[in-house]
């Protein structure tokens, strides 16, 4: 009766033997070396631990504010362009006025030197 299961037993032994054999062979034959850079957690090549209080130039502030300003302009332009035909000449005049105001602002910051990084 139990003889029927001898094949299963052999299969289990072979499977365990192969697995253990591979792990043991790898641990004996495989070259190993440990150093701090290698033992760090893998973070796609970046350092996994950095200070959250990193400093960056205050010039980014002005750039960011100006970017948001002209980004909003683009945000307004898209829906305006989508219903341009319904709005007709009135819509065109309104938008040109809006862009003109922003254009004056752009000239102002340009003249003030806000677009120069240095």
């Amino acid at each position, binding site marked *: 009766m139990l003889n029927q299961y001898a094949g299963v037993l052999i299969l289990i032994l072979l499977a365990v033997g192969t697995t253990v054999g591979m792990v043991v062979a790898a641990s*004996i*034959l*495989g*070259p*190993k*070396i440990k*150093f*701090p*850079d*290698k033992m*760090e957690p*893998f973070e*796609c*090549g*970046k*350092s996994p631990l950095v200070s959250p209080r990193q400093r960056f130039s205050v010039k980014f502030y002005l750039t960011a504010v100006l970017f948001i300003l002209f980004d909003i302009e683009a945000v307004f332009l898209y829906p305006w362009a989508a219903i341009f035909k319904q709005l007709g000449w009135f819509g065109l005049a309104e938008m040109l006025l809006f862009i003109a105001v922003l254009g004056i602002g752009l000239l102002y910051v340009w003249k003030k030197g806000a677009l120069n990084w240095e």
Partner: protein
Amino acid sequence: MGIGKSLGMEKGLGENVILTKLNDIVNWGRKYSFFLYPFITACCGMEFMSVAGPRYDMDRFGAALPRFSPRQADLMMVVGTISHKQAPILVKVYNQMAEPKWVMAYGVCTVSGGFYDNYATVQGIDTIIPVDIYVPGCPPRPEMVLDGLIKLQNKVQSEKFSDFPKGPSPVSKPKM
């Protein structure tokens, strides 16, 4: 430490037939079971997809499986331009790879900087990590990559236990 170093086998036995045969068998296993780490940064990546795909089929050479953790990879394929901004990342990934490890410089940008002869580009990744095989071309044809892979396999077959571990990249700070 490999068996050769840890047991002092090569020192004691020299080119003994047992050790060299074991070496041959291990190298035979290694050369047909590359696990890739695809460090792909630029346009050569398209060609890498082609060579990894079914038409050119790197699987035939045992180098099929891309691993996205360097812990599981042993062949780093540096595919595409490496800028100086990217260089520390490349070095770190190389350092974090499991031993034994090999590096293939894929495409002329990794080999020598290519036509990016400028301040932003690393002029050949062999200036920062050891490279085992160079496959130039812009981009290299898949046949060239396969040829390079076969040459790398031949190189692996001729390696000794004492060639490993390779350890950290020479440019990384020694904090041993």
